[in-house]
Structure formats: C-alpha cells, structure tokens
C-alpha cells in the first residue's frame, strides 16, 4: 500500500506543490485537494501548506480556517488522522482551534527569511517519530506573522504536557513565547510549525549546512514520520 497524503490548496497557498514534492520524495503519493470541496478523497494524512491565504486578511489563516473542507479536516483530526500545518497552515490550525495558542505579527514587525535551527522537543507525534528528542535540525523559515502566543495558563499546560514540538535554537526569529516554533495536540496527530520542512527535502535545494551549500534535508523526516504513522495504523 502506498500512503496517500493530501495537500489542501487554498486561495493564496504558495507552498502546496513544494509539499506535494516533499511527500513524493518521502515515498508517499501526494494528493492535491481543494479548499472549496468537502472531499478528502480517502487520504491517509493531510498537509495544510504555507502561503498567504486570503492575503492574511482579518487574521493570518482566519478565513481559510473556515473554508468548506475544514469541516472534514476537523472530523479527520478527531479520528486521529496525521495533519501537519506549515506556516500559514499552522495559522489555520490555531484559528480552527485544532491546536492551542495563536500567532501574531513578528515582534520586530518584519518579514523574515532564514535557515532556522530548531530543537525537537517531542518525538512521539505522527510527524516527528523519525527524530530524537533533543535533536537539532535546520530548515528554512519565512513569515511575517510567526509570533507564538497564548495565555499564561495555556503556556503552563502545553509546557507541562509536552505539547511543544519544536523550539527555536540560537535565534528566536519572531518573539515567540518560550522560543516555541511548533506545537502538537495531546493525541500527537495534529502538528503545526512556522518553519518549512518541505523546503529541506532534497540535496541541492535545501538550507546550507556546514558540509555544503543547500545540502540540508532535515525536513524529510517529517514526511517519513507520517508515512510510518500511516503504515503502522494500517498494519
């Protein structure tokens, strides 16, 4: 069985084809899905890609989070389907209340693009099982609204329950609370992060590493993790 991983395209999505490519390189079959549909086409996992859906009007991800297909996405999340939100997709997941907290304008007010070091804090989710806790990875980051915030009460809860999936290392690029780069839900099937794993999946097209320019492929393990989760679930 080849795992089928859907990528939902919203008006203003930018990295949907990159996510499809990453899925293919990880050994799964990418399935292009459309925001206006109510059909997940029987996929085994889902990626909500990066971009600027609806021009970030109202709040980043807010309008896309209320797209027709999001009803099915919420049902799928409830059933335990692996769902990854990248950048704008992460913003949609918090707007849809599938993940805790919120994302606001970067503290320095600037759009930022950099190869970002992260520390894996939770390697038990559907999207991080191929990492090890404490492992440091580098993947590209590019956003204007990446500041992770939540109430003091929520922060205490997500830190206490191990729901912080990734933390920024070296530089906190946007003023996120506790250097939080990504979070998971309690079940571990829904994960969101601001940096872009799909841009670090093929040597020659990834972030720079000490070994060679653009040779970073740390993002691939997100997608092979999902593949492992789907294969385990089917077994």
């Amino acid at each position, binding site marked *: 069985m080849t795992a089928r991983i859907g990528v939902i395209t919203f008006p203003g999505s930018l990295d949907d084809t990159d996510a499809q490519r990453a899925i293919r390189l990880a050994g799964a079959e990418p399935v292009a899905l459309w925001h206006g549909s109510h059909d997940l086409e029987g996929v085994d996992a889902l990626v909500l890609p990066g971009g600027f859906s609806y021009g970030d009007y*109202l*709040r980043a991800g*807010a309008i896309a989070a*209320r797209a027709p297909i999001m009803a099915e996405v919420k049902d799928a999340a409830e059933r335990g389907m692996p769902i990854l939100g990248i950048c704008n997709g992460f913003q949609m997941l*918090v*707007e849809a209340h599938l993940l805790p*907290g*919120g994302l*606001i*304008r*970067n*503290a*320095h*007010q600037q759009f930022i693009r950099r190869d970002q070091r992260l520390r894996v804090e939770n390697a038990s989710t559907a999207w991080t099982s191929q990492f090890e806790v404490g492992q440091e990875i580098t993947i590209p980051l590019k956003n204007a609204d990446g*500041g992770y*915030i*939540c*109430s003091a009460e*929520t922060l205490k809860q997500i830190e206490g329950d191990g729901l912080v999936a990734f933390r920024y290392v070296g530089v906190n690029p946007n*003023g996120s609370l506790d250097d939080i780069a990504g979070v998971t839900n309690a079940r571990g099937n829904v994960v969101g992060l601001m940096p872009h794993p799909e841009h670090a999946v093929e040597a020659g097209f990834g972030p720079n590493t000490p070994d060679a320019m653009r040779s970073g492929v740390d993002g691939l393990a997100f997608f092979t993790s999902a593949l492992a989760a789907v294969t385990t679930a089917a077994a």
Partner: protein
Amino acid sequence: MPTIVVDVMPKAELLDPQGKAVAGALDRLGHTGFSGVRIGKRFELTVDTADEATLAAVKTIADEILSNAVIEDVVGIEVVE
C-alpha cells in the same frame, strides 16, 4: 441603513508589535507623553434592521469570526444610524 460597529483589540496582556512600533515612531518624532499605543480593528456591518436578533447574530459573529479569543477581545458592539 443602520450600521453596526464592532471594535476588536489585541488582548491587553499580550504584545502588540504594531502599537509598539507606532509608539516608538511618535517618540522619535518628538510627540512625547504617550507611554503606550495599541492598535485594534473596527468592523462596520451594514444591516437592513438593527433589531435584537441582528444584534445577537453580530455578537456571535464578533466572537467567533471577527475576533480570535486567544489573542483578541471584542471591546464594543454599537449601532450607528
């Protein structure tokens, strides 16, 4: 036709990067005495009638769509003729 105005502000305890940038600019321009600036949003909803049912609907819309309770508060809903 009546207009219903909804005002939304970032939560007081959370950082408002836009307001902070404007406060910095004011100070730089010599407008002293402003210790803080916070920037919110104003929504103007044009309606046929501003009856109780419409206001109740606006309250729901304001809480569930126009604002995100995690990061913002609805600070006012007002009918303007």
